[in-house]
């Protein structure tokens, strides 16, 4: 028997299928194109305003039941909340040093867009939407800022939920946010990275340090 969530989702997908490729993105719900491939843009798309981007991220945070502050600060730490952020290369490293081939650094993979979604996550079906349904992160995270935001929040949400479950009573939202970011920025194995602190009491890792600075400002 279908749950109410399934019925709702089916109805939305049915609605999305009926829409033409030139369907206005401004009217798009965060769910409409979840895991759905986009076609080449047909009409000129203006750069979204910062408010539009924040509204979209905020909506996703609410849907996943994670703090808006966390989502905003991750987007800020990763790209300065820039929906047009350049792809960023991650270099192959051995013993902490970048591997070179013919004098050129070897690129392991790339991070794309506002949430800097890693290319290794593309086409993997192990992330879930806000209703708990598995979906595949598509190639569109490279070109569509909304798809990028959806993928980023879908990757961030389980990291935060895990921190909620793992951290002892008395831990603060900031602790959970830091753990979630250490995982988001690295791997599940690096989720405690933020605990290594310098003399100033801030995380030693540059990315974690940067995130905390942003988090406290939001």
């Amino acid at each position, binding site marked *: 028997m279908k749950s109410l969530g399934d019925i709702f989702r089916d109805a939305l997908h049915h609605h999305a299928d009926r829409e033409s490729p030139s369907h206005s993105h401004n009217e798009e719900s965060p769910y409409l194109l979840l895991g759905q491939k986009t076609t080449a*843009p047909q009409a000129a798309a203006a750069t979204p305003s910062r408010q539009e981007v924040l509204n979209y991220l905020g909506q996703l945070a609410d849907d996943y039941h994670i703090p808006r502050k966390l989502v905003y600060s991750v987007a800020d730490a990763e790209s300065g909340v820039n929906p*047009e952020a350049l792809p*960023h290369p991650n270099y192959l490293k051995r013993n902490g040093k970048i591997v070179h081939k013919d004098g050129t*650094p070897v690129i392991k993979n790339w991070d794309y867009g506002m949430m800097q979604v890693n290319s290794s996550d593309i086409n993997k079906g192990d992330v879930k939407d806000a209703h708990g349904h598995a979906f595949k992160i598509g190639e569109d995270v*490279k070109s569509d800022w909304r798809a990028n935001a959806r993928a980023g929040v879908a990757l961030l949400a389980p990291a935060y939920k895990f921190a909620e479950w793992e951290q002892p009573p008395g831990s603060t939202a900031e602790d959970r946010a830091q753990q979630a970011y250490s995982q988001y920025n690295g791997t599940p194995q690096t989720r405690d990275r933020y605990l290594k602190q310098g003399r100033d009491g801030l995380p030693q890792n540059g990315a974690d340090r940067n995130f905390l*600075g942003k988090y406290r400002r939001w």
Partner: protein
Amino acid sequence: MRVWINNRSRSRVGRWLVRYVAVVALLAALPLVFASQQAKPNLATVNIKENGDFRADLGYFFVEDGRLDVYSGWRDIDVIWDNMLHQYVLPHDMEKEVPSRGAPYYHEVYELDRGEWGRTERNFTQKPARYLDFGPCDASDQINLPNDFVAGLDAGTRKVLPRGAKIKGVTYIEDGRLVVIVASTIPSGSPSIYQTGTYPLNVFLLALKKDKWQIVASVQAEQWAYYCGMRTMDIVVNGGQPATLLLLYSSFPEGSRIFSVGRRIRTYVIRSNSESQQQQQPI
């Protein structure tokens, strides 16, 4: 028929007459008021408007007269920035419209027509045929032009800029009546970890008022970028009016400065009051 007008009626007529004359006089004076305003130097009539934003990731530009060639290197990053759509496009989507045949550069040509850029050509190419070397951009916000004659500045010019501004480039336009200054300003926050060393870039328009330079218009061109250069050219905008086109070159790194480098040219149309131009009065 005789019309009797008593004293009371006379005074009423007189009052109406006075009002009528006053209104007519005011209406007659309006053109004079406007004319005198236009004849006076009017700082509010100078404006700057962005009319182009061109970006090339791992690519190149070439600017010649009213033509702009943009080459985006897309093969490494697996995504193409389209300057017309102003968004990234996936290569296989782009290839449905323009065959790439494995060529590593996406090439767009824009031409200026009466102050507006229009795309006239696009294709994929093996290598940029014409390009402008951005050279070493100011990656550490070090350039701050000195107050000497060569730079065309004096201490007074610098004083009107926001505190902490570093002057990157200066040019005089409209026979020296206006100065265009590109300067970095102190950022209010910090850039993302992938944009280390970047800073805000602003364009200031200065005009002489009572022998002192004053900012008459300004715009923030970039929030986080490196300054790479600027140039101006004379153009004619819609309506046949002369104007100045400002091209501001910048770059913006993501992570490594070796690989992921975006280059950008923003263009601005600078216009001032046409009547004052004809009269060649200081603005």
